[in-house]
């Protein structure tokens, strides 16, 4: 459900971008672009708003054990997360996830760039990478507990390990698919190794790398929650599963709500960052479409 909404909003996002770049040259009045923005905002949000209203109204009267009124869930949400459990559970969860994710980004992109340069390394590594990445992350929890215990290191490691492959494979593909003319340009003009990496190789592969990073982010989030549900004494996932096991159903819903909101925010932040990094790519594509 989250995925569906995301792709829908990113579609309207590109449509809006190319429209505004067309009209930008025509210098339409600002109020009309403002109205347009409001309208697309309305189009994106009417369904979620309707669902929340229906949920609110429907759950207010019903007397079902597993579906407490939304008003109560929101109350518990506020009590739990703002800010009673915020520092003891939300922060550690986010820290584990971000450290694990950052590690997977660094290793995935770094290793991907290096391996892509060396044909033999690529051939040797590819089957292994595809094998490792097809192990479901959950299956790694038992061995991770044995080796690393129940602490945050275990979670960071397992998050990093699960998330790294999407970025690694995307980086390999992106670097390999770069136009060979660019490599010749950097050779003829004797561009330094550093500039070659940061101004040519990485930007050329950036569209693929970023879609890999986005998949990694989603995996990191899922694995963060799963590892807490399976083996933890703190964290959002732990509290949510604990609430379920102790029949604190409203708390469980409050936990799920927080997870939903966090997942949405992560994706939103990522998309904003991606638009900044790939602004040239977006501009180039919308240019190609209009010509």
């Amino acid at each position, binding site marked *: 459900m989250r995925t569906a909404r995301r792709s829908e909003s990113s579609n309207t996002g590109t449509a809006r971008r190319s429209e505004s770049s067309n009209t930008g040259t025509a210098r339409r009045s600002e109020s009309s672009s403002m109205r347009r923005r409001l309208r697309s905002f309305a189009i994106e949000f009417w369904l979620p708003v309707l669902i929340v209203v229906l949920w609110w109204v429907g759950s207010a009267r019903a007397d079902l054990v597993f579906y407490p009124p939304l008003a109560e869930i929101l109350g518990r949400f506020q009590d739990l997360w703002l800010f009673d459990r915020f520092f003891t559970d939300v922060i550690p969860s986010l820290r584990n996830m971000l450290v694990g994710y950052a590690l997977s980004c660094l290793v995935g992109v770094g290793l991907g760039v290096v391996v892509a340069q060396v044909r033999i390394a690529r051939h040797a590594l590819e089957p292994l990478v595809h094998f490792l990445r097809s192990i479901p992350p959950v299956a790694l929890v038992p061995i991770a507990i044995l080796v690393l215990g129940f602490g945050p290191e275990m979670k960071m490691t397992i998050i990093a390990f699960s998330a790294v492959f999407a970025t690694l494979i995307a980086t390999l593909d992106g670097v390999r698919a770069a136009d060979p003319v660019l490599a010749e340009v950097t050779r003829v003009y004797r561009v*330094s190794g550093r500039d070659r990496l940061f101004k040519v190789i990485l930007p050329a592969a950036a569209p693929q790398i970023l879609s890999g990073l986005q998949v990694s982010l989603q995996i990191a989030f899922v694995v963060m929650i799963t590892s807490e549900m399976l083996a933890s004494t703190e964290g959002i996932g732990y509290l949510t599963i604990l609430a379920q096991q102790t029949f604190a159903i409203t708390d469980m819903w409050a936990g799920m709500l927080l997870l939903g909101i966090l997942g949405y925010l992560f994706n939103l932040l990522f998309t904003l960052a991606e638009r900044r990094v790939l602004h040239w790519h977006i501009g180039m594509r919308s240019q190609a479409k209009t010509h």
Partner: protein
Amino acid sequence: MMTGVMTEASIPEQTDQRLVIEELRKTYGTGAAAKVVLDGLNFDVRSGEFVCIVGPSGAGKTTLLKCLAGLLPPTSGASYLDGIQIDGPPEKLALVFQEYTRSLMPWLTVEKNVTLPLSNKGISKRERRTRAQEALEAVGLADVPSKYPWQLSGGMQQRVAIARALAYQPEVLMMDEPFASVDAQTRFELEDLTLRVREQFGITIVLVTHDIDEAVYLADRVVVLGSAPAQVREIIDVDVTSPRDQVKTKADPRFTELRSRVFELIRAR
């Protein structure tokens, strides 16, 4: 192994030879799939000279330029820049690629594209910007430094690629069919621009083209290649008056004569 000897042998007296090409051969692939593309080329380019290499499509012109630019190792034979054997891209040399759209970085602005090759030259950031500005001015693009290449027309992109080469301040400028995919008007403009650049910067230019008119119009000497495997058919002195002019030069009977001569050489089997 005998390069030292050959170098000295090939430059008998203190001439102003910039580029010497000796028995240059290039074969793609090995064994049964081997394909000879360059079949023992010999010619030279003098300092400050404008040499055009003309030959039919697929003759091996790009292959030749890539060997001269140090991007491809020759199968045998060698080329020398100022007496030094070329075995990698020489510092004094810039190349304008045939695929000019693809040779610019779409994520860098025009100015950053032009300064990219300069950061390794040990010059200050200000000097780099000045050089970029001057080069862009020289190609008539002073007002677009903060645009992206894909926001420009094909002809303007080609100017950026030329500006990038100029800012690099090479002693030898190589150009691979630089005007093949722009419209006729732009093409004439860019041809004259290239002649002006040669005057202004006093550089040696080697330009590859399949267009006979262009070769004769631009060059001091034309090297005519036959179709693959390429050999030098003939080297023609273009004794047409300079400065060249798109209308007057092309109406000059000597120009017409030379053009027919090149055409016959290329057509001959």
